[in-house]
């Protein structure tokens, strides 16, 4: 069995068993009761502490408590002592320390942990215009905030999920829909929020019923899955070298109208996407085109 010496310090116990001796209880019985509690803590996980006036408390998970309760009842049967089971003890949130990713991220403003990718679209006349906003946890900002102690998997992914959940309250921009990257586990908390959840590809192992976008697929994923069966209202593809080598028929199966091509760094990337029927883009080059559009819009407004 795995020894569980840390349980009482790190994981919050679910409940506690209180041994409270009466005035008529022999000192030997005190010692026996305490020894039994400590034995239960040692063998099944848990912690024994003095509770004042000769009472002792065992904090542990329910199975260990039940074992201890039975052991003590057998010994104390008919003697002057009380055994009380106490309801759940300290809530874990209170027990959490300030050095974990949860606390580090909580202390930072949400905006500092998010990456915003304005989506470039094209109007009826072919002119560029804003087509919404993709918001996702910023991997670099999170890594910088967490420092070397929490580098690597699974901490970075966990931290990204924490940040994504906090972003559930964001309000969509006036110029178009909000695409928010979310873990599928957060969907129940989405409620009627006016945004399109962008789910990691793993969520497609059991796709949700409500509309959603997909983060991906990557070229590696496209090599495995059947593109004709790929669900999702929006596919956030990233421009990567292997994309060019994909068979031409694949784009028809994917339906380029639902693709947003990310990581577009120059005019050539944009042209490449347009040639495949893709109409929405993010990345440095689209950002420049959108900045120009905003300047013109401001000029018109002014």
């Amino acid at each position, binding site marked *: *069995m*795995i*020894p*569980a*010496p*840390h*349980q009482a*310090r*790190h*994981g*919050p*116990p*679910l409940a506690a068993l209180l041994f409270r001796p009466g005035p008529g209880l022999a000192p030997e019985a005190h010692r026996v009761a305490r020894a039994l509690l400590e034995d239960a803590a040692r063998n099944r*996980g848990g912690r024994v502490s003095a509770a004042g006036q000769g009472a002792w408390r065992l904090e542990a*998970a*329910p199975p260990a408590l039940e074992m201890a309760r039975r052991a003590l009842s057998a010994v104390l049967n008919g003697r002057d002592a009380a055994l009380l089971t106490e309801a*759940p003890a300290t*809530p*874990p*949130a209170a027990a*959490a*320390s300030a*050095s*974990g*990713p*949860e606390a580090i991220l909580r202390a930072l403003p949400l905006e500092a942990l998010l990456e915003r990718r304005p989506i470039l679209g094209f109007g009826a006349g072919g002119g560029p215009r804003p087509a919404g906003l993709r918001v996702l946890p910023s991997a670099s900002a999170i890594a910088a905030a967490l420092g070397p102690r*929490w580098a690597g*998997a*699974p*901490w970075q*992914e*966990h*931290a990204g*999920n924490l940040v994504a959940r906090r972003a559930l309250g964001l309000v969509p921009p006036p110029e178009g829909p909000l695409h928010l990257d979310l*873990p599928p*586990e*957060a969907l129940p908390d989405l409620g009627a929020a006016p945004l399109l959840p962008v789910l*990691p*590809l*793993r*969520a*497609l*192992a*059991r*796709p949700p019923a409500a509309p959603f976008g997909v983060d991906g*697929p*990557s070229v*590696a*994923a496209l*090599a*495995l*899955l*059947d593109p004709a*069966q*790929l*669900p999702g209202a929006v596919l956030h593809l990233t421009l990567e070298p292997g994309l060019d080598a994909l068979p031409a028929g694949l784009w028809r199966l994917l339906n380029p109208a639902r693709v947003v091509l990310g990581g577009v760094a120059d005019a050539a990337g944009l042209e490449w996407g347009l040639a495949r029927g893709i109409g929405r883009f993010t990345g440095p080059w689209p950002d420049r085109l959108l900045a120009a559009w905003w300047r013109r819009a401001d000029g018109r407004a002014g």
Partner: protein
Amino acid sequence: MSLALDFPARAKWASPLPADPPPLTGPDGGAAELAALVRLCLASGAVRDVLWLKLSRLPRGLDRPHHRRLLREALALPQHARRARVFHLPDGDMAVATAPPDTLRPAVLRVLDGALEDGAAAEVVRGLRLPEESGAVLAALEESLGLAPAAPPATPALPPLQAEALAAILPALMRADPAPYLRRQPVCRLWPEGGSGVEAEAIAPMPAALRDRLLPGFGLEEAPALAARLRLLLEQRMLAGIARPEWLASPKPLHLSLSVAALTSEAFLALDGRLPGAVRPMLTLSIPAAGILADPAGFALGRDLALSRGYGLALEAGCGAALALLKPARIRATMVRLAWNETLPADPGAVAALDGMEVVLTGADRAAAIAWGWENGVTLFQGRATDRHLRR
């Protein structure tokens, strides 16, 4: 009572033994006789319409004895009585099996016409056809016997697992004996006509059991990345314990549930190094669809390694959508481990995607799962419902 769900067979799906169709009439029976009828219909391919009268659902305020008498009279009509068998079920429901054409259902609906609103009639009178809907008949039978799975008790939502709590237990886990946190279940070949045998043992990590012991009070659902790490550690400990001398002395087939990261882990490579080439095909490495989608490049590498070394490769999926997206043959899986759930019968994509694959129906804890499997040509099962077959 022991519900005789140790079933059937059916000519269309691989029954080597011919079976006679069930008799058209007979004395009134109970639940066991109805289960036997299901078995015979599956075995022989004989078609029966089962009219399920949920008398327990008759609306309040109706003159129940009166309606029951009318129903009995309808059933006793000569044109029905000659071709019908009646089954009285423990909760007061009645089931009537007739050979086609189904004249009984319209007659019964006429009796109830006017007494019940349209929606209510559908609640009370349900038509099912054997052998196609064997699973639904058996599910209704289980419900009638009070064997239907109770709704899981509402577990209080636990606060999500925190990174520090997990980090604190990881060092101890590296050396731990994983046995208490691994679920070992036989994979059984069950033939509808009655034969059975254990073909393999399936081993899967149970991160929730580990959580219960080491991190009580924390929920894993809202911390998927941390839960996956807990699972990966258990998998690595599992892999370290596979090549024991007693297993190597007489190796038996094992299905190992592994995440993609475990497939290329040091623990797997170390195991691979200790296994003679002839023993490797005994292991079927079973990868969940979600993991493949999360790390396709890692999966492709692990798959190529596993296949080139002679291991079996299984895809774990739970719905038709996953199987359609990750076609088993396309990703070069040699087996599908399909997880049973109540929505599977309504999911046509699941069966369509199984074409030609070796399939294990996992999580077969209820007889309805086995019936659904047989309806769809599956004969390998894993789950508590296989127990009663193996005990015989």
